[in-house]
């Protein structure tokens, strides 16, 4: 790992929630690394823990969450070749250190632009709030100029007028641009986008995605994209993680996952998406059953109950991950025989 600049290194992340007197494990032994300048997509159905994973990394969790991990390391490569290391796992959720990371180093774009903007403040004030918080010496006027610059970069027409608007005066796509501007204003190295376009129309989604791709390539930013849209993944991501019931079931580069999906869940997930140009009369593959309740999961493979290849061995113990190709990990006993990596 000499040349690779690992910006985020997560090892054995476990997150549980206390609820009704019992502890429910939501994230189980999640490990991944993100290189600088690359984008990582986390895909899975709702409830598979993709949002909880990134919220555990940024420590934006409710009080009943218990986060454990071997380590969560964020490395900042800003200004120098020697990275500055931050042990996120050792920080307290809302301590000074963590707060200084959120914004200037790691920032998030949330799903619903309608809900993530405050309706009673002008959008300009909402953009500069983070900037002023992290740069105490900056004047409001300077900050506003930076905000206007940022909006120009994001392709918003007449930004001088737009900063004086309230959120209700803007359309959905515009609002999402404002949310991205808020996330970008402190020039963070890592942007986490949690379903950034789910609430938007396809044409607007294409605009926003184009924009994010440009930010990534032009400014060499790293992106974690959370989505359930397989199409977006192929257009945006370099690496892909597939999650099911809180566990990474398959991990690899975009090409590895899409040209050689090896976990039964990934295969079925990919073939259950209707693709344009499907022959008339052709049927979609479906995954039988529905996702189990995380509170009553037994040991063994989480997917066993819905898997057509399930054997007795699948129902026992912890299923290890096998590396079937360099960088391509599959957590399935059908790949046994390859090198165990996890």
């Amino acid at each position: 790992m000499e040349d690779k600049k690992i910006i985020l290194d997560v090892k054995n992340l476990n997150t549980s929630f206390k609820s009704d007197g019992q502890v429910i494990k939501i994230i189980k032994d999640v490990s991944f690394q993100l290189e600088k300048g690359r984008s990582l997509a986390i895909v899975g159905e709702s409830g598979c823990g993709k949002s909880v994973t990134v919220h555990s990394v940024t420590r934006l969790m409710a009080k009943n969450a218990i986060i454990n991990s071997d380590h969560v390391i964020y490395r900042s490569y800003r200004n120098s070749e020697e990275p500055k290391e931050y042990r996120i796992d050792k920080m307290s959720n809302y301590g000074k250190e963590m707060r200084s990371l959120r914004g200037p180093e790691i920032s998030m774009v949330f799903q619903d632009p309608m809900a993530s903007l405050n309706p009673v403040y002008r959008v300009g004030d909402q953009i500069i709030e983070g900037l002023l918080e992290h740069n105490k010496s900056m004047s409001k006027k300077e900050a506003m100029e930076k905000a206007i610059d940022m909006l120009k970069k994001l392709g918003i027409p007449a930004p001088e007028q737009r900063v004086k608007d309230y959120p209700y005066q803007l359309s959905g796509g515009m609002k999402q641009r404002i949310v991205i501007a808020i996330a970008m204003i402190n020039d963070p190295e890592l942007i986490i986008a949690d379903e950034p376009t789910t609430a938007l129309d396809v044409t607007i989604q294409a605009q926003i995605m184009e924009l994010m791709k440009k930010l990534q390539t032009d400014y060499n930013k790293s992106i974690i994209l959370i989505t359930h849209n397989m199409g977006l993944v192929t257009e945006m991501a370099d690496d892909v993680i597939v999650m099911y019931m809180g566990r990474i079931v398959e991990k690899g580069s975009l090409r590895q996952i899409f040209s050689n999906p090896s976990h039964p869940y990934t295969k079925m997930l990919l073939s259950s998406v209707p693709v344009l140009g499907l022959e008339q009369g052709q049927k979609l593959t479906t995954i039988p059953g529905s996702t189990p309740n995380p509170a009553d999961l037994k040991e063994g493979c989480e997917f066993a109950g819905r898997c057509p290849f399930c054997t007795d061995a699948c129902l026992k113990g912890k299923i290890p991950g096998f590396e079937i190709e360099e960088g391509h990990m599959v957590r399935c006993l059908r790949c046994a025989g390859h090198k165990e990596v996890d």
Partner: protein
Amino acid sequence: MADNNIFRLENVKVWFPVQKGFFKKTVGHVKAVDDVTINVKRNETLGIVGESGCGKTTLGKAMMLLENPTGGDVYFNEDGTEKDITKFSKEERFEFRKKVQMIFQDPYSALNPMKKIYTEMEEPLLIHGYKDKAEREYMMEQALKLVNIPVDYLFKYPHEFSGGQRQRVCIARAMEINPKVLVCDEAVSALDVSIQAQVLNLMKDIQQERDLTYVFIAHDLSVVQYMSDRILVMYLGKAVEMADSIELYANTKHPYTVSLLSAIPVPVLDRDKKRIILKGDVPSPINKPAGCPFHERCDRCMERCKTEEPQLKDVGNGHFVACHLYE
């Protein structure tokens, strides 16, 4: 073949007044559906696509008389005689509703959380005058069998179901009085992909079994193409293109449809990407641009498009398009 049409819409307009001031003076109209002429054939699936605010839901509601058209006629032809549903009396409307049912977008809010599925499903039967309890129960059971839900689930509450099951219950509730037409308004957009595939396949099976006609409204073009025989593309209350689903994808005409199709991210590696990113947003339906509604965002806009509104015209092969480029 007029006989083949179960629905025929002629110049349907649904306008909502915009009122201002103390006297509620009407200052303008939101032209949600503006001058749409289409037909729905028997036993086909007509897909309606478009971005949010293009009027696809309002058009679906106009077909169900949930919204009274401001202008134009909606003809319904069940048994060979065409009737204008906008002129129906109260009794006729009641009968009509037996034949046309709707499935709504969000299965979480379409079922009353305080009521058991039994009560929920019994209601339409009671309204439509099925007095015999045993008969009602038989019909409910048949409907649940159709959607592969165990009959003893009748005595459960909605919170005990998953999203896919709820949507299946909604389909069962719509199907139990044997309608001829199902209007599905974004029926699968609230579901996960694996569940979505289950529901879509189920809907296709039911259609074959019961000779149903679907009007399938959705914003997801890949889902619509999978389900539909013909597709209507709407933009700002106007029908801009209508064709067989295969024809529409293979031989896309209207610049809006072209850009809409190119905007869809497809989960296929190494697709040759010729993306057309549309600029700006959909204009307000209150102050529509003059001429072609799409001309401000169109990359092939001509002088003529700014003043003259194109009409939906047949360009052969059952392909209709409203664009000056193809005249």
